[in-house]
């Protein structure tokens, strides 16, 4: 680890000010992605701005139509929330399978989506459910939020405050974990609800999470695993590594999508 300055602001405004004043500074939430990178000296931020002391960044609120998860809410809190389990069981279940118990007790939804690791689980839920990301300066639709590999629409001094999920009629997430790391090698989140029928794929795309238009069209006509029969996934933009070729990932997208639709019922 290299040296860095450490800030612990007491408000979002103060955090934004610190960020704006230092382009080399990084925000730290749970640190479950950032700390390993720092330990391996793969990043050298001038400063860490710890969001841990800001009140009102943790919590879950549920209305008749939405579930809102604040940015610093841990995966464990989402997984254990009776309200989330009731409103969007697929979201609670997804959170319960992120990383391991230690990661779930530290890692946060804001950190996960702002990092946009191509193998992260949360981006699939955010995109498939058509969530709205509330930031320190605006509201961003999920479709506009994820812009590429480890890239989002967030400005350098913008902070994720909360993620607002519309409650779907049906939804499910199924992943095929990488056998070694247990990250999603392919994860598919399917949802039918106020934002229409949406299918989001994580783990597979070389540019991060993406929507599967052909599957969405087929499922909009007929919500059943059989409707996905014969629908292929173009391989050009898929990841290719020692664990799975593009072709194998494309195959797994089909299998996971069918399982997800079956699970959603």
């Amino acid at each position, binding site marked *: 680890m290299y040296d860095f300055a450490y800030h612990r602001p007491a408000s979002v405004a103060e955090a934004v000010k610190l960020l704006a004043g230092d382009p080399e500074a990084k925000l730290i939430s749970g640190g479950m992605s950032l700390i390993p990178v720092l330990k391996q000296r793969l990043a050298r931020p001038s400063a860490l701005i710890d969001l841990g002391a800001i009140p009102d960044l943790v919590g879950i609120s549920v209305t008749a139509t939405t579930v809102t998860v604040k940015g610093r809410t841990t995966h464990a809190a989402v997984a254990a929330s009776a309200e989330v389990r009731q409103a969007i069981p697929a979201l609670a279940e997804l959170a319960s399978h992120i990383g391991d118990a230690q990661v779930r007790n530290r890692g946060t939804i804001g950190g996960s989506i702002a990092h946009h690791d191509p193998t992260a689980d949360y981006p699939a839920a955010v995109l498939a459910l058509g969530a709205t990301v509330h930031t320190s300066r605006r509201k961003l639709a999920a479709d506009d939020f994820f812009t590429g590999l480890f890239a989002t629409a967030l400005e350098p001094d913008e902070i994720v405050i909360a993620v607002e999920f519309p409650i779907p009629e049906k939804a499910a997430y199924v992943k095929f974990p990488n*056998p*070694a*790391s247990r990250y999603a090698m392919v994860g598919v989140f399917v949802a039918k609800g106020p934002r229409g029928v949406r299918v989001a794929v994580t783990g597979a795309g070389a540019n991060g999470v993406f929507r599967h238009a052909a599957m969405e069209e087929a499922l909009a006509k007929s919500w059943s695993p059989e409707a996905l029969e014969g629908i292929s996934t173009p391989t050009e933009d898929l990841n290719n590594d*020692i*664990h*799975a*070729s593009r072709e*194998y990932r494309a*195959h797994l997208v089909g299998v996971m999508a069918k399982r997800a639709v079956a699970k959603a019922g």
Partner: protein
Amino acid sequence: MAQGIGQALLETRVHDEAGQFLSGSMMDYTMPRADDMLNIPVDNAVTMCTHNPLRVKGCGEVGAIRAPPAVICAVVDALHDYGARHIDMPATSQKIWRRISASRQHLAAE
């Protein structure tokens, strides 16, 4: 036995063309874990050694040595209908998928 099953199904050293070791961390090198394993009943089938007065013989790494052929024989047997008579270790899910798809394409072409 877990070690032998790991060798049969999961563990592999991967190098790129320049010789760089690609599976050098636990994020990439797949070790068997508790949830990869079954409860395996263990028993002894005792056979007296015929070559020495004590009728005993040293033996080690029984599980690690015996597990790979047992697992691979089972995999090859399961893939028999797809024309498999051999599969290289480790028999990962991707490798098995490739074997099945190659066989299906071959059948479709006939």
